[in-house]
């Protein structure tokens, strides 16, 4: 079964992922795709310690794209996690056939517009989102399994013209 959730979340592994999503899907592996974290031993250890019930793999975009298809056929379930839409797009452009991304947390930073309580986007984010959609990747906004998934384009009409 492998890939159970592909998520964009700037907090990477944290309570919502491990407690809320983890208790629904019980993933055996969590693949964090982030070039900066992959090259930092401290970050890798930190991410691993945040999900004691799963094997945490921290990968660069290039590594994750290479391993994506094999993981899709692996036993047990897996989550894939990226920190932002630019990384999501880079992963897809590098060859990972991700069908959809769950947008779970892109928090406020200067210059970003509020889409809802946990999603804030600027022009670069919107361009990445549009490029993903044009590649056939669905983008759904949903923080936890108990809340309703909403299409990003329905929440933010500016995506269409980004």
């Amino acid at each position: 079964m492998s890939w159970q959730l592909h998520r964009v979340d700037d907090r990477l592994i944290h309570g919502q992922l491990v407690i809320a999503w983890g208790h629904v899907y019980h993933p055996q592996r969590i693949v964090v795709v982030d070039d900066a974290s992959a090259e930092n031993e401290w970050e890798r250890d930190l991410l691993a310690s945040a999900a004691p019930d799963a094997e945490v793999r921290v990968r660069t975009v290039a590594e994750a794209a290479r391993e994506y298809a094999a993981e899709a056929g692996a036993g047990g379930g897996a989550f894939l996690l990226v920190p932002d839409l630019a990384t999501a797009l880079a992963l897809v452009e590098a060859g990972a056939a991700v069908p959809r991304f769950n947008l779970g947390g892109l928090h406020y930073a200067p210059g970003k517009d509020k889409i809802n309580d946990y999603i804030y986007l600027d022009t670069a984010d919107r361009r990445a989102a549009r490029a993903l959609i044009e590649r056939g990747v669905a983008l759904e906004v949903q923080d936890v399994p108990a809340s309703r998934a909403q299409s990003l384009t329905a929440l933010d009409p500016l995506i269409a013209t980004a």
Partner: protein
Amino acid sequence: MARVPALLVTHADLGAALLRAVAQVYGPVDGVEVLSNEGLSRPALEQEIARRVDGWPAGGLVLTDFFGGSCHTCVQSVARQRDVAIVTGVNLPTLLDYLHNRDQYAVWDLAERLQKKGQESIRLQRGQNV
């Protein structure tokens, strides 16, 4: 011995509520800072934590609500290069024990004391027919 300062980093307004609750038992509380992760990205939360602990002249304690949450992982990142001890799973008994002992212990000794206190604070009692 110098007082060990503390920062409480939690989800939502748990930290502020804990501090209000503890004040009802202990009396007015000073020297404990509170920070919520609400609305903050990972870098922003790390920056807010760093700004507070950097004001401590000789280290201190950061208390977080649960191990593995964003509050905790961000504190871990910040603690990497600072004289900070982290205690996860903060509750009312732990916070009270901190207030009662923060002038008598060094940072790490106090952290160990609070861990023990927190673990001992969860007890079971049977009601009728259980």
